[in-house]
């Protein structure tokens, strides 16, 4: 036993116990190129989609919003990818529009916009769903 202890003291292996694994405190969720991607770049569409998607609301980081409700939000708000995934929703502040700011329904994502009625849909409702089985 003493002999093995002496051996262990003599040599310090590179592999060391570093304790239980934990999720890092700071994780940068801004999009980066995949490590196995051939050219190590992301296409332009990644930034353009995010810019469009974050053009309204707290994710967009409109200047007044960043200043008023999310002062602690660091630089990724200004990144080409907007703030998507970069920070928790809590950090980004309220989703309410600022005073004097109004959004048109057409500016919201498609799923929140008004839908057109189709003849088939009207018929389905009027027939209690029976037309769908016809």
């Amino acid at each position, binding site marked *: 036993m003493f002999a093995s202890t002496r051996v262990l003291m003599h040599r310090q292996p590179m592999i060391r116990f570093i304790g239980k694994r934990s999720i890092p405190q700071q994780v940068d969720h801004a*999009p980066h190129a995949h490590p196995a991607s051939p050219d190590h770049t992301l296409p332009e569409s990644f930034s353009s989609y995010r810019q469009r998607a974050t053009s309204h609301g707290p994710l967009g980081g409109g200047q007044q919003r960043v200043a008023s409700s999310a002062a602690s939000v660091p630089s990724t708000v200004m990144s080409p990818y907007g703030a998507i995934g970069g920070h928790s929703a809590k950090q980004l502040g309220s989703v309410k529009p600022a005073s004097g700011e109004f959004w048109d329904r057409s500016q919201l994502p498609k799923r929140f916009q008004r839908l057109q009625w189709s003849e088939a849909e009207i018929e389905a409702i009027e027939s209690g769903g029976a037309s769908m089985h016809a």
Partner: protein
Amino acid sequence: MFSRLLPRAAPRSALQAQQQSLRYVRASPTTSSLFHAQQRGYATPSEEKDLVIIGGGVAGYVAAIKAGQEGLKVACIEKRGALGGTCLNVGCIPSKSLLNNSHLYHQILHDTKNRGIEVGDVKLNLAQMMKAKETSVSGLTKGIEFLFKKNNVEYIKGTGAFEDEHTIKVNLVDGGETSVRGKNILIATGSESTPFPGLEIDEKKVITSTGAIALTEVPKKMTVIGGGIIGLEMASVWSRLGSEVTVVEFLGQIGGPGMDNEVAKQSQKLLSKQGMKFKLNTKVVSGDASGEGVKLEVEAAKGGKAETIESDVVLVAIGRRPYTKGLNLESIGLETDTRGRLVIDSEYRTKLPHIRVVGDCTFGPMLAHKAEEEAVAAVEFITKGFGHVNYGAIPSVMYTHPEVAWVGANEQELKEQGVNYKVGSFPFSANSRAKTNLDSDGMVKFLADAETDRILGVHIIGPNAGEMIAEGTLALEYGASTEDIGRTCHAHPTLAEAFKEAAMNTYGKAVHY
């Protein structure tokens, strides 16, 4: 604010009973048009899932189980009718069954007398060998179905296609269609064999790996186009069972990218001893399968005299390509690169952040274990915000005999990168266990940083290489030095001692060689 614009829950719930009854009956085009991209709340056929996975292969089913374990509401869509994808149904698993059993057959035929075993009349029962393969496959696929139930994964049998960014329309295997919405969507649709231009695959005379595991008789002559891992494994199976096998490879070495030059040469030598013929630096110019057999016109890759190879069966094993057909990716604007791989970022997200991609249909090597790692990481990114895959420590294994396995960089890559490295190796012919097994072809080879002794790559050719590489992968993952391995006690007598001695030979000297 957005929530005020959503349809209220009450009217929706009133229609829930009706929705349930509608779920599996929608089949006519008229009715399905109602459920197009912009459907109203009342027509939503089921509750929104936290995660919808398209593809029930290794990447998809692992993600589904992991997501279920993490408490997500998850659905997995698979069109094959059986879970496990290519790997379990027509790839890794059935081929391993055939490799193992054909090796036993070959060994009984050729390698028993010197072991003191007298064997009588040995016959091949190919139908039974195939049945054994099918039993293994069906047992494993049913096992996944059980795991789905255990982890509350909804299994939808059908073909999925994007209806909109959050909705997947599914053509059910049993008829009819349904749609399922997901807060997150994971694409894990895998890959398919790359066809050879000018040769039509019929899976009888001109076959892919799928046909190669289901031949009903042993072909007298077989030609394999492509000397990569899949080609050589299948070539091994049919060569052992009696086929005269010729492997045609465009490159100057077998094994495909990643395999160390020295190991590839040794592997080719050993496979040639088993009866396989190799034509390296050779390209197939054209093929003709109109006759009874298949004729291939080949010539030297850099141009040269043409030659005709005639065979009963031609196996096309020139690689695999991502499979994303029918997903309707265009409708949501998802992009693929020039090789058909879906473009993702480091967290597996496409440009639409809630749609992720893992496995063969995106970047990285097309390996089942890589896909599994990515599946777990992708789910962890969704649930915990952090996942991990080390692309520098993904092992590769070729299950020929002897097996070939490697992890990390090979010599040619290190030379290209200008890394100052040292090499240490140990032959199995000096390993006691390999000697007693009368199975001592091959070696273990370490590549380590010349200055720090940190392991950069491990290459093994020899018995049990596929199992032994796990130790090398762990060492690489932990950033170990060869001395760490050399000073770790390995049981005697084991094949793993060759691993230790190769490490010793890298930073110092091996004892037994």
